[in-house]
């Protein structure tokens, strides 16, 4: 069932002296929607371009369907790309753009006609055959770019921040459409984005990248709930991170002392007593009250309560100077700015990250 369609092994890439991809390993499974997520400059686009054949790896192997492709030119590989800026041919109509790949493969005209029509129907652009790119909106151009790539029936479709140039509303709509398209065609999508929300919405799996390596690979759920590293915890959603040391680990419950002795508890296994740990808690999972709760002694002063639309965001300053963000659905009537409060959370909402190593708890 889980056939690997693209495999990268120990791939390295240098641009001059810059080591942008470092011993990169990744196995992409047939039919999945995999997202490469990371801040700009993390090498995600370079990975995509190396799969496409637009960039050569300095070392390492890249396989597409068990076949090594390092020596294959981009035009010989059965993958297609949707480019960030669409890269539609401005001197060609929608029809000619979509038909381009089939034309260069010398497919009979009649078949091209039928397949282009099919594509136009699929991306809902019937009637736009004769338009040139500069007469179309961003969203329409985007659809042409997708159709132009998909008509070649690629084994893998590579998408390089395809929605980056669209406005928020259109982007949301296209996210859903892309996901639906991918399910329907059952083609492997490799999607590059720096937008964590986009990644969480669309992906089957996400590879969070930083500085040329995969920080964590997992389903959106896993990555959000159990970030494996501090970077992932900070990049996907927001996190409050407390440095500490484990004082007891019994029955899957960890008791942790913060840097100045604050107590906190969380679920976690595989940790040893005395081990340093980073405790993460999402702003929406944490709470505060005027009285200390069992097992917690994180004391702080309410600095600010900000209304951000759907939530009230409270900023609490701990005694050691750390600022903690907590989101609440409602405003607590009896707590005002300047009050001293105690922060706590349900044991299962906290998660521990090892200072070194990449494993997740649970």
């Amino acid at each position, binding site marked *: 069932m889980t056939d690997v369609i693209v495999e990268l092994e120990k791939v390295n890439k240098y641009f001059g002296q810059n080591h942008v991809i470092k011993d990169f390993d990744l196995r992409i499974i047939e039919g999945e929607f995999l997202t490469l997520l990371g801040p700009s400059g993390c090498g995600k686009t370079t990975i995509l371009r190396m799969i*496409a*054949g*637009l960039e050569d790896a300095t070392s390492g192997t890249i396989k597409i369907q068990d076949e090594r492709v390092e020596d294959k*030119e*981009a*035009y010989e590989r059965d*993958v*297609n*790309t949707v*480019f960030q*800026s669409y*890269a*539609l*041919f*401005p*001197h060609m109509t929608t029809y000619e753009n979509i038909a*381009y*790949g089939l034309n*260069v*493969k010398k497919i009979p005209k009649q078949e091209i006609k039928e397949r282009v029509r099919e594509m136009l129907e699929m991306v809902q652009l019937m009637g736009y055959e004769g338009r040139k790119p500069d007469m179309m909106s961003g969203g329409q151009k985007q659809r042409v770019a997708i159709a*132009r*790539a998909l008509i*070649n029936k690629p084994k893998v479709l590579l998408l390089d921040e395809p929605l980056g140039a669209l406005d928020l509303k259109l982007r949301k709509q296209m996210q859903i459409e892309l996901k639906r398209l991918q399910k329907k065609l059952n083609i492997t999508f490799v999607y590059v984005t720096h937008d964590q929300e986009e990644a969480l919405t669309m992906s089957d799996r996400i590879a969070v990248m930083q500085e040329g390596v995969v920080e964590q690979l997992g389903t959106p759920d896993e990555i959000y709930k159990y970030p494996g590293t501090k970077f992932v915890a900070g990049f996907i959603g927001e996190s409050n991170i407390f440095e500490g040391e484990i004082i007891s680990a019994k029955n899957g419950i960890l008791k942790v002392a913060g840097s100045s002795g604050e107590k906190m508890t969380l679920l976690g296994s595989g940790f040893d007593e005395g081990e340093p740990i980073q405790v993460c808690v999402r702003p929406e999972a944490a709470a505060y009250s005027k009285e200390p709760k069992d097992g917690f002694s994180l004391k702080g002063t309410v600095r600010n309560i900000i209304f951000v639309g759907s939530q009230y965001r409270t900023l609490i300053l701990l005694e050691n100077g750390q600022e903690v963000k907590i989101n609440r659905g409602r405003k607590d009537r009896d707590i005002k700015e300047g009050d001293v409060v105690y922060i706590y959370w349900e044991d299962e909402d906290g998660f521990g990250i090892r200072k070194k190593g990449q494993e997740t708890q649970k």
Partner: protein
Amino acid sequence: MNEKNGITVKDKKSWFRRNGPVLSTTGPISVWMLVFVLIPMLYIIFISFMTRDVYGGIVYDFTLDNYKEIIQPLYLKVIWKSLKLAFITTVICLLLGYPLAYYIAGKPSKTAAKLIMLVMIPYWTNSLVRLYSVNLLGATNGPINNILMDIGLISEPLDMLYSDGIVVIGLLTAMLPFSVLPLYASIEKLDKSLLEASRDLGARPHITFLKVTIPLTMPGIVGCVLLVFIPSLGMYYVPEALGGGKVMLIGSLVRNQFLVTKNWPFGASLAILLVLMTLAMVWIYTRVSKMDDLEVF
């Protein structure tokens, strides 16, 4: 403006106010164009229909003879040869200029600016000096013949001077910089991601070149053709200097009619023909390439 009585003083004032800025900016050049281009042009058209008297003066008798004279085989041959040499020059300029422009466009902008400078430097040197150096190179005992004879490729010096070939070389030295500039301008603007897209969609390099690169750099190609073909057609000092009067082109013909034979009316009709050919070229190119904006101009 039909109701002349309706125009009041106030209207006139506002006319100046409306057109003042335009007049002050485009006025001087308009006057220049009027005095030094339009009026001489009209005068040339006018005398092309006049008659020449025996002393080289102009008699104001209307006639079409000057145009009928052009249809003589002797002159048609000159026109044909001019077209042929201009065409060959243009083709060679494209073949040499395109790869060079492509190469320069691929360089970082600072390097590219320096390379463009190198291309332009010959143009800033005196054109006659350049032509005579071509002349020296091609002379019977010039370096080219000497080298070829020394390495034994030829036993007798080639008679390069006063041939069509050396005239084309002369035209090339004059025109090549102009061919590189518009080509460079349009190749440099070419979005490289389009070439990648083509590659990604399965097109081999030559297909990408034919289907994407050439069509998208067409403004530069058209610009190159216009900038090379038209001046080559009328340029008279190159065949004069290198052809030694043996290679007669339409430009030299016009010059001779005005300055040597003193047949101004006939010279004028030839000049008008040259202008018409030029206009026809421009018209055909704008038609064929269907371009609303020729970016080189």
